[in-house]
Structure formats: C-alpha cells, structure tokens
C-alpha cells in the first residue's frame, strides 16, 4: 500500500479528515524551508505538499508567486526540492509528500528520469498544474511505473461530462480546487463546496481534498466535515513571509499549522 493510501486508511479509522499543508521548497532559503518541512508532521500536517519553484506560476496569486521568487533567488531548483524530500525522509517515513508545480522543470529534467528520481527521494504524488488530461500521457505512465500517484485537479468548471476525463488518470486522492481562480485570493461558499464534493464522489471512490481560499482553522473545520482533507497553502506561506529574517520564521507558520490541525481534528466531534 502506498503512503498516501495508508494515511487515508488510518484517518478513516480515526474518523477524521486530513490537514494538507503547502509550502514552497527553498522559501526563503533551504535551511528555513527544511526546518519547516521537517516540523510539519509534529505540528499536525497529515499530508505535505511541497511546491516546486517556477519562474512563471500562472495559476498562483502573489503570495505563492513571491515565495517561488524568493526560493529561486536563494538557489532553489528542482534538484534542491528532491534533496529536501530525501532529507525529510530521514526524519519521517510515513507522512506522504506531494510535489506540486508546473510542467517545464519536470520536462527539462526528463519525465521518465524524474519519475524515478522523485520516487527514489521519497515522493509519493505529483500535482502538475498545467498538465491537463489532454497532455498527461507523456508523464503519467512513468509515474505509475515508479509508484508515484498523479493527483488530478478538478475545478468548478469540471462538469459531469468533464469529470470522467479528468478522473481517468487519477490515483492517490482528488484535489478539488474550490474556486475558479488563482491561489490565495477568494474563498468559495461552503454550500457550493458541499455540492461539488458530493458530485465528485458520484464519479470516484478516491478521497477528495479541497483547497484554495482556506485561511482559518474554522474554515478548515467546515471543509473537514464533508471532505477527506483540507489543503492550506497561501495562509501558511503568508505567515512565513511576514516572519522572514525574524525568530518566528519557522515557529510562526508551524503555530498556524497547529491551529489548523486542531480545527480539522475537532471537526467531526
């Protein structure tokens, strides 16, 4: 069983949803970012998404765009991202790590070789924002062969005709992007999320995690009542950005993760 499947099985037994946290690898520098990553499980993250920095993050808002810029300026790269996962795996063998980003760095690495190297580093899943099902053939078979899940994104624009096309490649879990928009901006109405999650469940038995626009523990708790996971990115990265160069660069974002985890864990009680 994959780390992702094991994690969801465990959460199911505990009758709770996952807290999925996002940070950009190498933001604002390798050491801080590694300390944050390594501290995530203890703070309550059940699954970790690690952003692969890219110069042109077209689906991201300013918070994550700036994070990618800081990481690249400090020497961040796809190689460094994999090194961070390798280092993380020395401290944690169970928490799933998903890499999230844009296709060009992966393409430049070579899809087949990247799948092998990522698996070797201890990566469990991959989210490629700009690789829709129409183009995914060039990567997915290599991921499958390497035992890495291809986590698909479904959105408010994925209707009942579109969903089966998107879900055809899916494994691990399904990520529902709750707004038509970029990261770190608007939040969706809870009723719309409930409806969308129910609709996705009619098309797949995979766990469904919801992200985009979740900032506060109470919101994460609302999501955790209906979905299998709540994904929080920009809010954590924002707290990090506010604390760069200060003593709270690692502790402040982790404190938010703790609060979010408490929200998610208390949701179904």
């Amino acid at each position, binding site marked *: 069983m994959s780390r992702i499947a094991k994690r969801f099985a465990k959460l199911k037994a505990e009758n709770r949803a996952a807290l999925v946290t996002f940070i950009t690898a190498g933001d604002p520098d390798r050491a801080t970012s590694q300390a944050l990553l390594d501290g995530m499980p203890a703070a309550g993250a059940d699954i970790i998404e690690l952003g692969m920095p*890219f*110069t*042109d*993050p*077209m*689906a991201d*808002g300013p918070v994550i*765009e700036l994070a990618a*810029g800081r990481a*690249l300026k400090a020497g961040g*790269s*796809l*190689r460094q991202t994999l090194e961070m996962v390798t280092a993380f795996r020395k401290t944690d063998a169970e928490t799933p790590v998903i890499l999230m980003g*844009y*296709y*060009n*760095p*992966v*393409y*430049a*690495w070579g899809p087949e070789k990247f799948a092998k190297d990522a698996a070797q580093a201890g990566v469990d899943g991959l989210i490629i*924002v*700009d*690789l*829709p*099902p*129409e*183009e995914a053939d060039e990567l997915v078979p290599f991921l499958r062969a390497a035992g890495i899940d291809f986590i*698909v*994104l*479904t*959105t*408010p*624009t*994925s*209707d009942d005709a*579109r969903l089966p096309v*998107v879900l055809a490649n899916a494994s691990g879990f399904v990520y529902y*992007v709750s707004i*038509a*928009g*970029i990261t770190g*901006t*608007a939040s969706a109405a809870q009723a719309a999320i409930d409806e969308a999650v129910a609709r996705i469940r009619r098309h797949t038995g995979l766990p469904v995690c919801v992200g985009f626009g979740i900032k506060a523990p109470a919101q994460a708790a609302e999501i955790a009542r209906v979905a299998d996971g709540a994904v929080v990115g920009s809010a954590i990265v924002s707290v990090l950005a506010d604390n760069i160069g200060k003593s709270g660069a690692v502790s402040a974002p982790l404190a938010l993760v703790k609060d979010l985890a408490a929200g998610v864990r208390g949701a179904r009680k």
Partner: protein
Amino acid sequence: MQSLNTYRAGPDERGHFGIFGGRYVAETLMPLILEVEKAYGAAKADPAFQAEFRSLLAQYVGRPNPLYFARRLTEAFGGAKVFLKREDLNHTGAHKINNCIGQILLARRMGKQRIIAETGAGQHGVATATVCALFGMRCVIYMGATDIERQMPNVYRMKLLGAEVKPVTSGAATLKDAMNDALRDWVSNVTDTYYLIGTVAGPHPYPAMVRDFQSVIGEEVRDQIMAQEGRLPDSLVACIGGGSNAMGLFHPFLDDKSVRIIGVEAAGHGLDKLHAASLTGGKPGVLHGNRTYLLQDADGQIAEAHSISAGLDYPGIGPEHSWLHETGRVEYVSVTDDEAVVAFQQCTRLEGIIPALESSHAIAHAAKLTPGLPKDHLMVVNLSGRGDKDVSTIAKALGDEHLGGLV
C-alpha cells in the same frame, strides 16, 4: 532533411505541430479552451462569419494594403528587388488588427461580454481596445510596466479607446509577465471573459486560429506579386516576436518550394548576451499553454528575454515556428538592437516610411541578405507596423545630437 508533401496540414486534432503546440493549461481553463476550439471550428466553416470578417478587413481595416516596391532601399541594399508589405497602413498601424477582427467576431458569437489581452509593444493592446470600442465590449489590457514606459503613446491610445490598462510588475515586467497575468485573470473570470491572444502562441486552438486570421497577409502578397511581377516571390522575410505577422505571410507559401522563407528573431544585445532569439538560443519547453522553443536554464526556469523592441521581447515563439524550424522549411536568423536601429533610420530616410522597431528587424536582415542576390530576385519584407510608437526609444538609442538637440 526529408521534405514533406505539405507543410500546411497542421496542427493535428490535439493541436500539435510535431511535438510542439498542445494545450498545457490549468484544468479550470480546459473547458473554456475546448469551447473556443469548438466555436472557432464552427465559425471557420460558416460562410456568414467569413463574409463578415472579410468585409470588416476591407471596410474598417483598409485591406488590401499595398505591396510596395521600395526602389531606394533596393538601390541602397544593392541586390534583390525589395517589396514592403504595408501592414503599417492598416487601421491602428500594424498587422495585429487582422487577428483582433477575427477573434472579436468569435467572442461575440460565443456570447462573451468582457475581453482581456496581453500586449508588449501596445499594438495588440490598441487593436484589441479598438475592436472592443467598435463592438461595445469591456476591455482589460495587461501590459508590463517596462513596456508601458517605452510605449507610452500606445498606452494613451488604449485608454482613450476606453480600455483599462493594468500594469504588470512581476519578472522583467514585459510581455511574458503580461501573459501570465492575463491567464490569471482568465482563470478567475471564466464565465463572461474571452482571452484575445495577440500572436500565434498559447494553447490550441490559438496558434492555428491566429495564423488563419493573419494569413490574409500572405494571400494578398501572392495575388499582388502575380499582378505586379507575374510570378511568385523568391524570398519572404518577417520579424518574429510570437510570430503572427511572420506566420501570416509565410503560411500561404509554405508549399511553394521555390520560395525561400526567413524568420528574424531579436538578438538584443547579442546572442552571447541578453536577447530574445528563442529558436537560436533556446530549447523545447512548456509555457503559456504550448510546447515550443523557450529561453530557459538547465532547471527549466524561464529566462528573461531582451529586445529594444517591446513586441519581440518574449522568451518563446509560436509552436508552429518551432516545428517549421525543426523540419527545416523555414530559416530562422536573428538581428541585434543596433542593426535594427540602423535599418529603422534607413527605411525612414530613404523611403519616407517610419517602420516599427519590430519590423526594422526584418528590414535589417534584408539589408544583410540582398548584396549576394541577383537583381531580379523578388524579396518580400513584411512591414508589420508603423514606428510612431517607437520615436522616444529611438531618440534614447541615438542620443540627442542625432536629432539636432530636439530631445
């Protein structure tokens, strides 16, 4: 290299030209892209749509524009007969309007209310703002802050036409960054908004659709040169930013084997320094919805381009050009900032035509190419736009004394 029976059949049904092109966009946009593809397919086959397009090109844009024999440039260059395709004489002053007319008609057919676009030199922004005024649509233009500064006259024009110009400050604040923000807008406004892309790039069907609308350039050249010279041209030369004026000129001639076809990229400060020559200095990658040649580092991070000309200052190129480069059908060369500035002055002084800095790259290459060619060689250079927008950039490049202390 093995030659193909036809170079005009692409893209395939998935939008690929060989390995290039495709639809590399966020899932949120996929249903829209598919809708654009379907709507364009229907419009293309609809005689009423084509008739309205042709009629606006004639009545509003002022087509056909002349294929002008440039006698004094021909004499100065000392070789082939040089003809200028006068896209600068179109309404709004560049070829960009051809594509905008086509796409605004499509957006109307699709029932969209709000138009967004990216612009570099501001010519595409002006053309978009113009057609939005004509049809009473809301218009938002994304433009890099660097480009706003160097193309100020066009910024005023867009505002006068009723468009909202949104400055983009990320990256080098040029065309690539403007395209990122336009895509962010589109993802956030999927129901009412149409993205009117200004060149033969972006996800399928844009590269093919923009090419189709711009092909009027080459179709006219074919008729005009047959009427004026009684035969096909021997060579075609056009500048390349994303590649739309070039593709519009080239595409109707791709299967005429006797016609030598040359695309001119911007070599900026030089190919060993900062430049915008994606085919010469880049390698295949994925950006802005398609696979194509891109300036990038070993990690797949996109490099900043540089050209004195805002319209060529882009680290990529339309996917069909990447394919034509790899098949060898079209030759791609490059011209530096300095060479373009010299050509700009030559054309202005010898022909009384102030060319856009973009088009000056094509003229500069014609100057290099002609000396070795026979006197009866017929060369068509695409004068993609007029240079009024560039006078302050030229003044800066030449310095005060050249203009008699006028600046």
